[in-house]
């Protein structure tokens, strides 16, 4: 007996015609929905970067093969991998059947048929198991609050499971008619067919059952097509497009193509941003990673995306009716959500787009308005006279760049480094190191202005651009070759965002520069005492700028073997709570972000927590102070301060 089967056996021709007609109608409906939706997406501004199809396809395939963005959640990784590859196997099987049936070619025969049967069965099994896992997670995680109750998603999952199960039942009924021995290569169908036989559904009695099951299965498949656009299934198209585009750097902002002078509108988003609203799976990974949510603040990154989608559904209602102001101003700009999103949605950029709308109409929290006003008038968000920028240098020899003097190494002090008392200590430590190493460097003194990073993250794009242009002119005037900064926010602005305006010199974080000095042997450090140390990765150094090694390398030179890691470290670091303008804002939650981080430090048992950001330093100190009495017996130091403590010389102590 040659292993093969009659395609579409026992299917009434009228039913088949009806299936094709309904499938065509479904395809028309899907096309209609996406065309109508794309008109709404098109109300956004065009992206400056274009998607190269070849590169996009390669990215998509690499993504689908590895499912790498799910790696942080193994359950989700297995679940989606099984669903996706099971679905692909079933899709291929259906396509092969259709080709054989309509192409009048018989290739599903003999060994090919056996492999086809086995592959289709295993694909269906994987798909069923994946859907089962999804249903289980929906049930278990809904209770934990990670997944929002969504009847439509639950319905879709049951629909998919029904399609898979009815497909197996259909196969079983076909096998149960005469049990051809080669059908053991359809193991699931064979086992079910044995079950059918046990209840008396074998031989000719299986024929009407098979026909009924085929009709039921076909109806479910048509139902699947119909619900694609209106449910989470639309992500098959939108999420595929989202991951096909370059993932981009978390936290990176793009300049809006139109100046924002009114409340947020679809035109204030990029088309791609609007499409991503439809790509959101509502999986809650972003919410799980969000420090504001962990502190019980009103922000949920997922809600922002769902609100954006609601706005697409009802474009006439203002955004303010979808996203509460408190939620918008709770964001710390840490971009943990961007990194966590399995389909590469940059949620923070959407939050900033909404903030821009609020800033444009002057409706922003008073501390944020004061910080922006101060930045606009005094060129620093601390509201201090810019002429007092060099007060930190009292008692130190600090060379200030002369008018038009070429500068090989510019040490960028930054606003926190110039005005904040703790930040000044970091600056003074850096100056001691630079002077100790007899490096030729300059500072800009009172010509330095805010990098504009806080303004941009608060939604004041125009002020950011204005400051960026002034600072770039300064760099050009002094023909700066390298900018050295201890502030990761300035680093990010210069390295990744100023480049959209004009060319920039090389930009280094002080940890990177110190690593280079250790490597070239100019910086010699002695081992610190016996204390344990942990490192808090600043979001804009680790997560955003991929630099997690340089600070550890420098610390390793002093604390070798005594450095302990917090569970949330490196690119997964937990925010200090001071980014995105939060150092000035203070939206109330049930807890404080800096306190949560301080507790995480406390759990390591370290006596010192090092960091590489003046804002993190302030916030960690605040968090330490907020711990219960008896706790917080550790100190917060910047890398530069620890280097000064452990320089192999006594003259700079």
């Amino acid at each position, binding site marked *: 007996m040659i292993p093969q089967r009659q395609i579409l056996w026992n299917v009434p021709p009228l039913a088949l015609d009806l299936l094709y007609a309904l499938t065509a109608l479904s395809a028309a409906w899907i096309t209609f929905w996406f065309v109508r939706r794309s008109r709404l997406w098109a109300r956004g501004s065009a992206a400056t970067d274009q998607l190269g199809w070849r590169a996009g396809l390669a990215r998509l395939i690499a993504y689908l093969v590895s499912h790498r963005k799910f790696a942080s959640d193994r359950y989700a990784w297995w679940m989606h991998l099984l669903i996706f590859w099971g679905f692909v196997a079933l899709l291929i099987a259906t396509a092969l059947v259709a080709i054989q049936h309509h192409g009048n070619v018989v290739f599903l025969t003999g060994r090919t048929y056996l492999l086809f049967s086995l592959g289709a069965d295993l694909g269906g099994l994987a798909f069923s198991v994946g859907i089962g896992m999804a249903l289980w997670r929906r049930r278990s995680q809904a209770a934990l609050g990670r997944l929002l109750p969504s009847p439509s998603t639950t319905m879709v999952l049951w629909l998919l499971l029904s399609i898979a199960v009815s497909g197996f039942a259909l196969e079983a009924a076909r096998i149960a008619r005469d049990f051809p021995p080669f059908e053991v290569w359809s193991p699931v169908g064979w086992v079910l067919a044995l079950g059918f036989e046990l209840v008396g559904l074998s031989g000719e009695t299986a024929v009407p059952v098979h026909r009924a099951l085929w009709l039921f299965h076909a109806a479910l498949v048509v139902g699947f097509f119909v619900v694609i656009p209106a449910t989470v299934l639309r992500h098959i198209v939108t999420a595929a497009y989202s991951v096909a585009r370059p993932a981009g750097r978390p936290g990176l902002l793009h300049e809006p193509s139109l100046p*924002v002078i009114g409340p947020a509108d679809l035109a204030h988003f990029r088309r791609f941003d609007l499409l991503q609203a439809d790509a959101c799976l509502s999986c809650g990974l972003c919410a799980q990673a969000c420090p504001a949510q962990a502190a019980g603040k009103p922000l949920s990154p997922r809600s922002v995306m769902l609100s954006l989608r609601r706005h697409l559904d009802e474009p006439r209602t203002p955004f303010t009716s979808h996203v509460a102001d408190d939620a918008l101003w709770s964001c710390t700009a840490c971009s943990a959500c961007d990194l966590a999103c399995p389909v590469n949605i940059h949620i923070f950029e959407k939050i900033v787009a909404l903030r821009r709308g609020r*800033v444009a109409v002057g409706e922003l929290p008073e501390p944020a*308005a004061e910080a*922006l*006003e101060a930045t606009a008038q005094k*060129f620093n968000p601390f509201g201090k006279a810019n*002429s007092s920028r060099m007060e930190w240098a009292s008692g130190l020899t600090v060379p200030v760049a002369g008018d038009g003097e070429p500068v090989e190494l510019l040490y960028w002090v930054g606003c926190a480094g110039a005005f904040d008392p703790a930040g000044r200590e970091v600056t003074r430590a850096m100056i001691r190191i630079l002077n100790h190493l007899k490096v030729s460097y300059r500072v800009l003194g*009172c010509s330095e202005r805010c990098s504009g990073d806080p303004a941009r993250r608060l939604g004041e794009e125009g002020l950011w*651009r204005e400051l960026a242009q002034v600072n770039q002119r300064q760099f050009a005037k002094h023909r700066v070759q390298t900018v050295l900064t201890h502030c990761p926010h300035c680093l990010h602005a210069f390295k990744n965002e100023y480049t959209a305006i004009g060319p920039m010199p090389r930009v280094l974080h002080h940890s990177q520069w110190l690593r280079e000095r250790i490597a070239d042997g100019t910086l010699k450090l002695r081992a610190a005492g016996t204390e344990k140390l942990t490192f808090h990765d600043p979001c804009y150094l680790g997560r955003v700028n991929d630099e997690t090694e340089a600070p550890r390398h420098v610390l390793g030179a002093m604390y070798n073997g005594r450095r302990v890691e917090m569970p949330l470290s490196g690119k997964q670091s937990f925010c200090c709570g001071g980014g995105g303008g939060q150092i000035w804002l203070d939206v109330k939650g049930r807890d404080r972000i800096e306190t949560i981080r301080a507790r995480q430090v406390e759990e390591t048992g370290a006596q010192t927590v090092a960091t590489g950001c003046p804002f993190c330093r302030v916030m960690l100190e605040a968090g330490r102070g907020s711990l219960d009495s008896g706790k917080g017996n550790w100190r917060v130091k910047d890398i530069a301060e620890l280097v000064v403590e452990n320089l192999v010389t006594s003259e700079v102590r």
Partner: protein
Amino acid sequence: MKVFVQVWCEIDPTLNVRIDRQTSQPVAEPGDQLRRASLLGRAGVAAAAKLRPASLTAFALGAGHADALRYALAAGATRAIELTTDGPDGEAFAPAALADWFAAQAADLLIADRLAGLIAARLGWSHLAGLEDLQAESSRLRALRVLGRGDRERVSARLPAAVRLQSDSRAPYVSRARLEAVAAQPIERIVLPAAPALPAIGPVQINRPRARVSQTPAPAAGSASDRLQALMGGNKSSVNAGPRAAKTAATPDQLAEEFVRYLLHHGLLPIGKR
């Protein structure tokens, strides 16, 4: 409703400023920005914009206030006017000419600094000072008057009126994008006749300085100075809320002190004129 709001640029009071000996001009330290759009003027524009008037005109007395006028346009003003005089410095305004100009504009509400009292006196308009939370209803203006130390009273006045806001009124932030959007909008320049001679502030008023809006006396505030501060714009405004209390009798010394401060406030004494 036609609203006029005075705006101006001022020296940032939080900076260290010195006078250049050569030019006799104020100079800021390197790195600082000497002037800023007055916060009180900006608060005035914001308060006026909240009234949703048919036209909101921002004006500045003299040249050098273009930045403040641009702020006003960005914050919702429909016109920006730079008033100058045909005198040598363009800034010695004749009170009569200013008052005539406002009368000719058929303004319903003028929000200004010290100018408000002068115009109210000249034109017989209602005058209130130390206000916040302005609201216009038909032909009346309602507002909260700040008495100091957290005390406030509700006041109302018949329109047209000339008012001064509370000096620490917060000016809402105006984004750079909005400023850029109005950068090309024209600033009208209107030349008024200059005052013939000093003092430019005008003659001592013979008539009652401002129109009164009610016969009900205002309640006493926490102290005489608070009361004085609150009543700079008028001592017969109607009071619709707040604890009612009989007016306390002041001593002759207190009355004299109040009178002198009143004259100083309106620039009617040569000393202490700002």
